[in-house]
């Protein structure tokens, strides 16, 4: 029956050991402080006894207290108390340092890991849960450092007590020490009962965080559709489940604590009962029994401190498992050693690329969905290639592949004949920039959003803004380049955000520029101006541009038409228009529509006239 529980305690101790190794010094301080505290707690009673015998009693008997007697009395008691307090301060402060330092370390580790793990991992792990991993789970793991030093420090009391007991009477001591197997048993039962409950509570905590995070991100849509009640119900559902889970945890803990508290008393009573019997048989002195009974009650306190630590252990294990799952997650991109050349337009090529997404069904089972089939695209140095295709045809996936945001399952992506998987960490962003279809703004200034911490002068920033046709509105912002754009750029209009994202790419003067429908939110006039600017600014750049509008398309030296994840055709605009039906349908859709409308209107007019 103990198969699960014992290893779990051992695991908990191992985890605690990992934590101690992170902060050995602070932890040692905390234990030292705690030891001082333990010794001084025992000393307090002893000191009072001593001064009562040596100072107070003589004074009372003499009917007169000398100031020497009074000072000695005061000094002994106050001294011991002072040391005791010093011990407590050291213990608590050092325990705080240990706990928060270790927690901060693991928060860094976890969040680093978030930055390392691939996008596909992020797709599978709700952001809100990740917040919970970095906060609540790390906290749950290391909370044990609050009671731990105390428990270790008072072990001194424990050992001293046991030794004295054995010295007094070994047989009685054995009876007294049955307390420990009892404690062990209680703890085992407790660990078994507690672990699954804590795991559940911690998971629900993460789910509450998940729902909250998603719901707050969706706030505008929720409001626009008047679904506040529905969201509240969704949140209530998980919250109530968390409530129930926490109550279950509390019930278990609430059973364990009184039991732990009662065990020493039970030991004392056992000693008294057996002792009295022994004394009445004449096998033992009454004083010995009294002493052993007293010693057990002295042990009650360290035992309780131990109980606090044991009570925290299941949380430690569960928290650690959740944190460790993140730390152990595999699939982070491996990097090579190669550096890409730094100058001149890049020559990029996708050859025979396959790519599948893992799609999850309602049951949570994963299956691959092949979004890209054997795609080959060549981007000669300095060329502009347009990627055209209907909604959901795989354009964004291809742009992601071309910058190694994801790795292909088959085939290869190369820049200047170097397989991207061999490029060193950070090598690709140095030469290639992407303006994604959906802009992401950091909670930072306009300048910060463009430079992203890179070493660019304000002149360069203005230059990039000019190409992106953003000079005008940035100048009008309250604090110009220093204006904070709010979280996710909330204080900018859609088109403004998109132009800042463009400037972010342009300023890097990349050798390969990938534009994924990067002008979808700007008006036609601005779009025209941006394209003209880009033409000038990107002379040393290879450009891959996802586009629908003919003006953009016709900038391209070559057009690649994709549908259903396959390249159906490529060539010049005129060639494709002539021979590729899907392409023609797509790019002439607006013109045909306009013509049809005009015809209908002409008809109507003809009729009315």
């Amino acid at each position: 029956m103990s198969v699960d529980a014992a290893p779990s305690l051992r695991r908990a101790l191992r985890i605690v050991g990992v934590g101690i190794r992170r902060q050995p010094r602070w932890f040692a301080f905390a234990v030292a402080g705690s030891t001082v505290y333990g010794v001084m707690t025992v000393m307090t009673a002893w000191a009072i006894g001593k001064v009562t015998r040596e100072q107070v009693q003589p004074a009372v008997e003499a009917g007169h207290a000398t100031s020497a007697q009074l000072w000695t009395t005061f000094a002994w008691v106050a001294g011991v108390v002072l040391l005791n307090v010093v011990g407590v301060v050291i213990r608590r402060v050092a325990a705080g340092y240990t706990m928060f330092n270790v927690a901060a370390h693991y928060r860094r580790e976890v969040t680093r890991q978030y930055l390392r793990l691939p996008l596909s991992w992020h797709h599978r792990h709700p952001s809100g849960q990740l917040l919970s991993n970095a906060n609540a789970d790390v906290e749950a793991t290391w909370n044990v450092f609050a009671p731990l030093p105390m428990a270790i420090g008072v072990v001194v009391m424990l050992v001293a007590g046991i030794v004295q007991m054995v010295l007094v009477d070994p047989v009685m001591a054995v009876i007294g020490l049955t307390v420990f197997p009892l404690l062990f048993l209680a703890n085992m039962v407790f660990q078994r009962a507690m672990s699954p409950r804590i795991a559940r509570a911690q998971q629900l905590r993460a789910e509450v965080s998940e729902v909250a995070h998603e719901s707050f991100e969706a706030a505008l849509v929720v409001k626009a559709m008047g679904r506040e009640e529905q969201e509240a119900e969704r949140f209530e559902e998980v919250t109530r489940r968390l409530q129930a889970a926490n109550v279950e945890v509390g019930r278990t803990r609430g059973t364990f604590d009184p039991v732990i508290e009662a065990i020493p008393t039970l030991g004392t009573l056992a000693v008294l009962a057996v002792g009295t019997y022994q004394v009445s048989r004449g096998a033992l002195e009454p004083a010995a029994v009294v002493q052993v009974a007293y010693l057990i009650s002295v042990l009650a306190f360290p035992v309780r401190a131990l109980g606090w630590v044991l009570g925290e252990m299941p949380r430690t294990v569960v928290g650690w498992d959740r944190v460790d799952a993140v730390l152990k997650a595999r699939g982070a991109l491996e990097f090579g050693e190669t550096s890409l050349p730094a100058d001149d337009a890049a020559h990029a090529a996708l050859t025979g690329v396959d790519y599948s997404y893992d799609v999850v069904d309602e049951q949570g089972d994963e299956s691959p969905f092949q979004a890209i089939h054997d795609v080959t695209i060549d981007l000669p140095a300095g060329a502009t290639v347009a990627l055209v295709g209907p909604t959901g045809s795989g354009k964004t996936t291809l742009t992601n592949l071309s910058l190694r945001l994801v790795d292909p399952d088959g085939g290869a992506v190369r820049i200047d004949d170097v397989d991207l998987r061999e490029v060193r960490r950070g090598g690709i962003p140095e030469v290639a920039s992407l303006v994604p279809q959906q802009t992401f703004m950091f909670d930072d200034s306009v300048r910060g959003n463009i430079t992203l911490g890179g070493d660019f002068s304000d002149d360069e920033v203005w230059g990039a803004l000019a190409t992106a046709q953003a000079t005008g509105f940035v100048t009008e912002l309250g604090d110009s380049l220093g204006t904070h754009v709010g979280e996710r750029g909330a204080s900018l209009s859609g088109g403004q955000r998109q132009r800042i994202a463009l400037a972010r790419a342009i300023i890097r003067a990349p050798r390969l520029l990938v534009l994924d429908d990067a002008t979808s939110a700007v008006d036609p006039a601005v779009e025209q101006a941006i394209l003209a600017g880009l033409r000038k600014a990107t002379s040393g750049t290879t450009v891959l541009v996802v586009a629908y509008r003919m003006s953009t398309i016709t900038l391209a030296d070559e057009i690649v038409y994709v549908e259903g994840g396959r390249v159906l055709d490529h060539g010049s605009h005129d060639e494709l228009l002539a021979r590729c039906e899907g392409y023609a349908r797509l790019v002439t859709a607006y013109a045909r529509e306009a013509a049809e409308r005009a015809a209908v209107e002409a008809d109507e007019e003809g009729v009315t006239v």
Partner: protein
Amino acid sequence: MSATIEKTSSLGTLDTLKRGLALSPELRRGLWVTLALAAVTTVGRIVVPFVVQQTTDHGLLGAGGPDPGLVVRYVLLALVAVAVTALTAYAVNVRLYRASEAGLATLRLKAFRHIHDLSMLTQNTERRGSMVSRVTSDVDTISMFVQFGGIILILSLGQIVVATVLMAVYSPLLTAVVWLCFVPLLVVIRRFQRIVGRAYTVVRERVGDLLAAVSESVVGAATIRAYGVESRTAERIDDAIEAHRAAAIRAQVRSVVAFSSGQLVAGLTLAVVLVVGTVLAAGGHMTLGELLAFLFLVNLFTQPVQQATEILNELQNAVAGWRRVIGIVDTPADVADPGDAGVTLPRGPISVTFEDVGFAYPGGEPVLHDVDLTIEPRSRIAIVGETGSGKSTLAKLLTRLMDPRDGRVLIDGTDLRDVRFSSLRERVVLVPQEGFLFDETLLENIRFGRPDATDEEVELALTELGLDQWLEGLPQGLRTEVGQRGESLSAGERQLVALARAYLADPDLLVLDEATSAVDPSTEVRLQRALEGLTRGRTSIAIAHRLSTAEAADEVVVVDRGRIVQRGPHRELVQQEGSVYAGLHASWAAQQRG
């Protein structure tokens, strides 16, 4: 001006407690029973050692030698006492857990609900991660105190009173000495409470910052990778982690100082009592035995005092959490639902009127000036204009996501501010420029538009929009999981879902803000046709940069730098030479030619 979310409420400790208890009535429910049970437990904790003492004194060391019979009886008595203590302790624990978890769940719900009631602009004054901390870890912080602290505090106060009375029976003078020693402590504690409270408040704010930083890094994962700014992002997160660590340690140190001052005073009191007691005993005012008994009582007094100082720290921690939650709950919802006092609009085509509407974002320049606009029922309007000219702002005013600074917006002749939200949201639906899908199936996402729609109705909606073919191509059809924020779909597909969702809601006024900007032209044209047929009979307003939308509309409204500069059918506007619309259209036409 819209309200700003307070980082923390500025209520004092007591007011915070009061407000906190009012927000979670469960915390007080059944408290008397729990208190009574807790008192029994406390008495038990004192009685058990006493009985053990008696066993030794009378049974073992009795005058006539050990008395096994008596010992057995006493031991049994003690066992009963242990059992009662344990049982009541268990009952107290469970009751406290139940009450506190119920109370805290309620608090979470109230805060969550209120966040959604806040106006859009108010919501934007705080980062999402930080909001999450208000309904998660801030509430968790409170739990420690409400589970045990509160009740122990009350019991401690009781014990202090009892101990004082007992002490006074032995020696009023020494009792006065004890209290004199503790008076300075009370002053110190009061001061420290404030310091500790502030320190904990900073910790809570840092947690909010931390979560906001983490949130940004996971939501922006793709951009961070594309630009290789992992290390910069890591630095930003590290700063937040470090700020939190430093704040937590500061708070810890302060609370340790506060706690140990209690301990120190308790110890010193013991020393002082011993000294003064010695003088008194030497002077014959009390016996040595009385002095020793008094010392025991002093312990009975100082122990709850120490416990109380500890719990006061815990209280400050809880108050810090409460202040954050109350900070959000007490932020006024300035775009408020008139509720029952409001007007319920009858169904049917809607007319819209803007009367001299002016608007400026908080702290910004005006973005809309004197907008006067009437939109007839059943008309299909396109709003066009340069980026940043104020189109989305107009749409948000029209759907009452914000209230105008000047003038009024009326639908069917009623000021929007007087229309009940339930009625408004049912009849007017906006597909915002920044759409959002939930991490659920396609079906559930579309059903978000009308929760009671059946699967068939959802399917029908997609068919009517001409999206059935697209649906067939999806790996699991309507059961396809769209992933977080819908990221398992392509950008265009996400817009299709958002559109279907609004369509399913079946509003009388449909406002589309760039709802098809990422959809390919031929799908867009098809959708437009479908919508045209379907929106006949209702009013629709479409904001678009692609002028195909304008060409198809009954009327075009041209916005330029916050003013309406032109309006009329496409045909007429293009002919107004040198006009904004003519310029836009020329660019558009040029684009089509390439």
